[in-house]
């Protein structure tokens, strides 16, 4: 484990603060300090009163509009937004509600969400949720390479790719009796449109417009269950059936026809032996089938794949005296896959794969020490993969071709320890350390034809990962909340078969939140700052040649969000918020120009209470993206809103 200078300074700083400042504290510790929600639209915190907010917005765009559309789904120069909620409680106690929001800022058509629901307390509840949103994609591919260090921009797509996601779900719960209950529902997800891809157009690399992916797929899922609870016994049985159909295409050159089904069943059981001991168990099985086709532009392959899953879990929850509790569980899973591609009656590719895994977990919580909470987790897991892949059928089939047999065993240890200690009445220290050790024994594949190795072989490998976090939360009087902390990751990954090839991942992030909120006063102040550095590197530090992309990564991200709200008299409120996100990647900056990308966001908003039930708002928002490539843009957004409750 490497302890760098940043970590040491942070730890020392936190320790000093922890013991020096509590004397100033008066109030009790509560939630983390919050910054104001700069992203929230007008009228956003709505409560359970009937309400509505209507907004008109005008956009004054400058620069790359496609990038702005990708970031904010803002395309239209003039647009409207609205959100609403209607709640009703009847004499018999049953409730109904309809709430939602929408806008037409993207394509000009209405997109949004609504939630319709109701209940008869203790007996029946139901809910319908519908979401329909568009996602826009930039016309150029994100990349960092010498030729893309600065304008002029590369070739770009002619249109603005747009992918629509439409999702709906229905759920109903019904209590048959004190012991029995029923639950059921339906989910539907539809994707339609064009999605920008990271890869470039067919046969192209480098200075080419990106490729796109086309989607026209629908997923339907029906599910239902029955539950029983009586005495110390509880159980539920759930079944589900999901189907996905439709077409996908990669750049119009690789076409897919999806025809996927999945059936699943799951049984859950719990039994409370007494106040101190509870047993739980789950058993599940599922069957996944894919029988579509895959057209590579040259041939069309029929697919016939099937995976059967069996899984189980047993666990014990125990209260050990008044100060400790224990959770222990054992999990088992087995996956069997048979998959083939056919050209007519001829088997072209096939696999038989079996993956068995077990893992055992234990968690111990202890709060017997004054002001202290401790939590210890340990998990041990093993898995084994036996796989045969073949060009043609697998051995035992009618059309056996070249095949490859793989045998892989994994073991993994996960250990974590969390501690929380309350220092004085208004300060708390939280710490967490975690360690993962993974060992993979990947035997040399057995080849039927030594000259034809089918799949890439990784070989034996080990992974070690350490994570730690340290945070201090303080409250000074009733007005000031102050949080500060540090998080870090240190990982090494070794491949033993390739001269101990090693890659490393290190990350450090510090953060602090400060809020000053007198409560009942006229001025609230908020501020949050975080800074993180992250580095991915390889043992021998290979350096790319001048026409290559970066090999190393050395990124840093800073986020800074000051804000204030000011109440002028009883009817007028003023808000000002700023958010800056700075990103820089200097990996291989000796060959490739470093990437700098800055997001600056600002919002000024004024609200005036016309009456106790109505309010008008005016706001100005500025979104700027500035990088040393070609995607810069600025949005000036002007809006007026009216909110009312009724």
């Amino acid at each position: 484990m490497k302890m760098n200078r940043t970590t040491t300074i942070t730890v020392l700083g936190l320790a000093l603060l922890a013991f020096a400042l509590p004397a100033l504290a008066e109030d009790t510790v509560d939630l983390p300090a919050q910054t104001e929600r700069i992203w929230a639209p007008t009228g956003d915190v709505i409560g359970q009163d009937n309400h509505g907010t209507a907004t008109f917005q005008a956009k004054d765009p400058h620069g790359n509009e496609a990038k702005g559309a990708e970031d904010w789904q803002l395309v239209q120069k003039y647009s409207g937004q609205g959100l609403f909620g209607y709640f009703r409680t009847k004499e018999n106690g049953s409730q109904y509600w309809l709430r939602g929001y929408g806008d037409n800022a993207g394509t000009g058509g209405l997109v949004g969400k609504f939630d319709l629901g109701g209940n008869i307390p203790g007996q029946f509840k139901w809910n319908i949720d519908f979401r329909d949103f568009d996602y826009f994609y930039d016309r150029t591919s994100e990349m960092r390479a010498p030729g893309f260090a600065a304008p002029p921009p590369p070739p770009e797509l002619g249109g603005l790719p747009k992918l629509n996601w439409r999702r709906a779900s229905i759920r109903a719960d019904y209590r048959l009796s004190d012991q029995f209950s029923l639950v059921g529902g339906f989910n539907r997800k539809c994707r339609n449109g064009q999605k920008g891809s990271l890869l470039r157009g067919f046969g192209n690399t480098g200075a080419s417009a990106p490729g796109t992916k086309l989607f026209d797929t629908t997923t339907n899922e029906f599910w239902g269950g029955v539950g029983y609870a009586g005495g110390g016994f509880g159980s539920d049985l759930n079944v589900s059936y999901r189907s996905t159909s439709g077409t996908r295409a990669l750049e119009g050159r690789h076409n897919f026809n999806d025809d996927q089904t999945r059936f699943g069943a799951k049984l859950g059981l719990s039994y409370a032996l007494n106040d101190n001991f509870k047993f739980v168990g789950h058993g599940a099985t599922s069957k996944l089938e894919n029988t579509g086709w895959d057209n590579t532009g040259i041939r069309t392959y029929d697919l016939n794949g099937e995976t059967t899953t069996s899984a189980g879990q047993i666990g014990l929850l125990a209260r050990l005296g008044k100060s400790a509790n224990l959770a222990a569980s054992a999990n088992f899973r087995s996956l069997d896959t048979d998959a083939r591609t056919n050209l007519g009656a001829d088997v072209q590719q096939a696999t038989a794969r079996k993956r068995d895994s077990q893992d055992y977990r234990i968690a111990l919580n202890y709060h017997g020490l004054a002001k202290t909470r401790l939590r210890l987790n340990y998990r041990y897991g093993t898995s084994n993969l036996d796989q045969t892949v073949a060009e043609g059928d697998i051995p035992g089939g009618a059309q056996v071709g070249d095949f490859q047999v793989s045998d892989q065993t994994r073991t993994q240890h996960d250990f974590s320890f969390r501690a929380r200690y309350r220092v004085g009445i208004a300060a708390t220290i939280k710490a967490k350390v975690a360690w993962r050790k993974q060992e993979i024994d990947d035997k040399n594949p057995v080849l039927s034809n030594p000259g034809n190795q089918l799949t890439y072989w990784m070989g034996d490998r080990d992974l070690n990962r350490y994570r730690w976090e340290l945070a201090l939360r303080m409250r000074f009087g009733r007005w000031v909340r102050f949080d500060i902390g540090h998080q870090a990751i240190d990982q090494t990954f070794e491949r033993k078969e390739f001269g101990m090839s090693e890659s490393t991942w290190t990350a450090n992030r510090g953060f602090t939140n400060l809020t000053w909120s007198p409560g009942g006063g006229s001025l609230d102040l908020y501020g949050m700052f975080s800074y993180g550095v992250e580095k991915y590197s390889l043992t021998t530090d290979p350096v790319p040649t001048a026409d290559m992309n970066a090999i190393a990564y050395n990124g840093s991200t800073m986020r800074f969000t000051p804000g204030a709200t000011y109440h002028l008299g009883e009817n007028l409120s003023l808000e000002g918020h700023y958010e800056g996100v700075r990103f820089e990647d200097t990996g291989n900056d000796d060959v490739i120009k470093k990437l700098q990308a800055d997001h600056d966001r600002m919002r000024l908003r004024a609200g005036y209470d016309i009456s106790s039930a109505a309010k008008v708002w005016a706001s100005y928002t500025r979104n700027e993206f500035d990088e040393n490539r070609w995607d810069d843009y600025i949005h000036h957004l002007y809006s007026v809103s009216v909110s009312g409750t009724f």
Partner: protein
Amino acid sequence: MLRLILPVAGILLLSPGIAAGGVSFVDAFDVPAGAGYVGSETCLDCHDDVGEFYANSPHSPDRGLAIPGTGIAGCEACHGPGSLHVEEDGDGFIIGPEILAGQGQGVKVAMCTQCHTDKGLEWTGGPHAGTDISCANCHTDQVHFAGGVTPVSDFRNKGEFCLQCHPAQVTDFRLPFRHRVLEGQIDCQDCHNPHADFDQTAWNGMNGVCLECHVEMEGPFVYEHEGVASEDCITCHRPHGSNHDKLLITESNSMCLQCHFEQGFNAGDGWTLGGRGHGGLLSDEARCFDCHTEVHGSNTDPNFKDQ
């Protein structure tokens, strides 16, 4: 399959003892001898503010909802029998706020799951299990004794409710590439169940969450990418937010090389990976996935290429 049947059968064998093993929330306390149930109307004679709080709530004492199988309803379902409390002019003898505040998570949760029995099964393995968090800490608009957080019903989108305790995720959701939680298009609950852990009995643990929407990556494939099948989607993706398109952990080839790097991968050795020189292939600013287009799995090419 035997591994599945055995534990299930074991639990079923235990189940005949359920009648004797029944426990309730009040059983965890030393209820004073002689205390009896008086009904919520008596309670509300003094605690009328509580009655007002619940006026439009499923928990309103007017509803008369009882703990299943007991007939114990209203205030006393959580606070225990109140007759001695009434006789002593409201001084002690019930499970009051002071007593409840000193209880551990298990007891606090049991107060709610004695009626919300379906949640009892979920709660036991959830991300909040073993912490200080219990039902009332989140469902603040459903009970009269909680405070601190803004209720979920007050937010335009439910996801933001969780961020009150998880502010670090806000920073992730403000990065250029993100799942649009703050915009209200996706909720935390679409991926995370606050009552239960990632489904350990699902197709592939945590990946099951991602594959509910990104179904085409579920396969099954003839050739699967081990990074997807044996590891997690988060080996390559940061689901909350990233500085890199498609929520990738790093830019470009530096990500793939984290696992696929081999000693000798440099210009002098012809940029060899997997026994094949990639020199000419990596030029012209190419990236690995320009050729290996089917990185999540392929039915036609063992190296995930587009053919």
